[in-house]
């Protein structure tokens, strides 16, 4: 059953896309612009994790086939991505008195800067985490699913992070303020919410999730200066599909786009000669088709 394998692959790829798309949508909802540096923020997280892992090593213990040191390195990647994003917000976006289109264009420049700095430091070559590739989990092989423990680790970590974000948004004071600020920033200030601080928290969380996504993307495939940029269009597709600015829409959109991407081999299996090289294109076609029916994305509220 190839289908099960594709679904398993889809779950893993979706996990990475969801981490990135949720962060992108979060920042869009409060900073109010489409951040084209989000993909390169993932790259920053991946390289920070790579360097940290090189320094601290495996640390002995293993969790889901991954050395404990990888998770520590991932945390470093998350922190570095968040700090870089906050500095960028403070030094670049905040001082600029321009509209959201101006900020969008600025963020393209910021993306180039991130990428150039990484390339200066690490070169343009593709590298990998020094972690041994695992054999697929034996128990799943009879089902035709080749899935490693690392894949499971990516999936579990993404579920944990997204669940944590959900709990934060729904059940904490900060989360309610973030939702209120995203809903109506003027009314948020009128209510007494210090929206500047909320914006900082949003950058921190959004970029942190991007850093995590970058770290996992590096583990899933490889680490290179263009890794985040290459995946950015797919992440945008996920966010737009879900309804830009909607966090839960981004979760759904990320899941669907990741799935569609990995289910593409199904087409050749049933005799349609469209190869996996078209997987992104198919995801975009489906995104356009959905937008024709729901112009504001799946999670948009009808008539409001």
């Amino acid at each position, binding site marked *: 059953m190839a289908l099960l394998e594709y679904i398993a692959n889809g779950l893993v790829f979706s996990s990475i896309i969801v981490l990135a798309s949720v962060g992108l949508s979060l920042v869009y909802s409060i900073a109010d612009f489409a951040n084209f540096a989000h993909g390169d923020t993932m790259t920053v997280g991946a390289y920070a994790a790579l360097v940290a892992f090189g320094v601290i090593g495996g640390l002995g213990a293993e969790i889901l086939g991954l050395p404990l040191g990888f998770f520590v390195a991932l945390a470093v990647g998350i922190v570095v991505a968040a700090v870089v994003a906050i500095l960028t917000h403070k030094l670049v976006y905040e001082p600029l008195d321009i509209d959201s289109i101006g900020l969008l264009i600025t963020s393209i420049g910021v993306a180039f800067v991130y990428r150039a700095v990484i390339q200066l430091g690490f070169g343009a070559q593709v590298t990998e985490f020094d972690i041994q590739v695992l054999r697929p989990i034996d128990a799943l092989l009879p089902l035709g699913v080749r899935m490693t423990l690392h894949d499971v680790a990516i999936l579990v970590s993404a579920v944990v992070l997204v669940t944590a974000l959900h709990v934060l948004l729904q059940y904490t004071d900060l989360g309610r303020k973030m939702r209120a600020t995203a*809903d109506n920033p003027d009314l948020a*200030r009128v*209510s007494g919410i210090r929206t500047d601080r909320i914006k900082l928290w949003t950058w921190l969380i959004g970029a942190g999730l991007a850093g995590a996504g970058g770290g996992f993307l590096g583990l899933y495939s490889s680490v290179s200066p263009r890794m985040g940029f290459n995946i950015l269009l797919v992440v945008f597709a996920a966010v737009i599909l879900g309804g830009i600015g909607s966090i839960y829409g981004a979760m759904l959109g990320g899941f669907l786009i990741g799935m569609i991407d990995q289910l593409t081999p199904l087409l050749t299996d049933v005799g349609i000669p469209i190869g996996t090289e078209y997987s992104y294109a198919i995801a975009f076609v489906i995104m356009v088709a959905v937008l024709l029916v729901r112009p504001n994305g799946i999670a948009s509220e009808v008539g409001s």
Partner: protein
Amino acid sequence: MSDETTTTSSAEANDGVDDAVLTVEHVDSGYGDAQVLDDLSLALADGEVACLIGPNGAGKSTVLKTVFGMLQPWTGHVRFRGADIGGMAPEDIVREGIGYVPQTENVFGSLTIEENLRMGGVARDDDLTPVIDDLYDRFPILAEKRRANANTLSGGQRQVLAFARALVMEPDVLLIDEPSAGLAPNTADEVFEDVLAVNDLGTAILMVEQNAKKGLAISDRGYVLDQGTVRFEDDADALLDNPEVSRLYLGG
């Protein structure tokens, strides 16, 4: 912006308002380079309801936005209990004891009623539950729908929630921008009753109202704005009886 001469009845340094809690003194203000308010002065006494009326574009909403820090006064002063609050940010002004209910988009549509009220009290350090329970007692429709998202409310119910959100802070002064805008006449009357109910708690109210007659009818004091400045200022009843005001601004 205007070369018209002001009428003799225009406000001059707010004479006639004793124990003013809020004063706007000779304020110019506007959006970007576009001036809207021109040497505007007015005052609100403790515990009263004052209504700003006047044609579209007269600057009524701009007065509220300038008082509440959404716009900066270019010149002049905004004083609350004697302290100059001109130029302070909205999130700070709300902590001083002034509340603001915008005309539109005045609830957090994607948040529940309860969450809207909690957001209204973010600047309070104490437990919000008793305050919110009080508001639920006063506005039972909100208690009924506390777990529903605010965008499921009708227009009138939204307006009630918008008031309640601002009241969580128990402000001394509440600025209300066109409470009856977009509401059916019956619903508008109910909202005006709610305005009076809020005032009964001792909250002074500065209200902008398109429906000048109804607005003045529930007010103690009235200001007629035209071209960014106060043309007439008087007791609300007296303005309603003023033939010139009636002819020019109340539609005969």
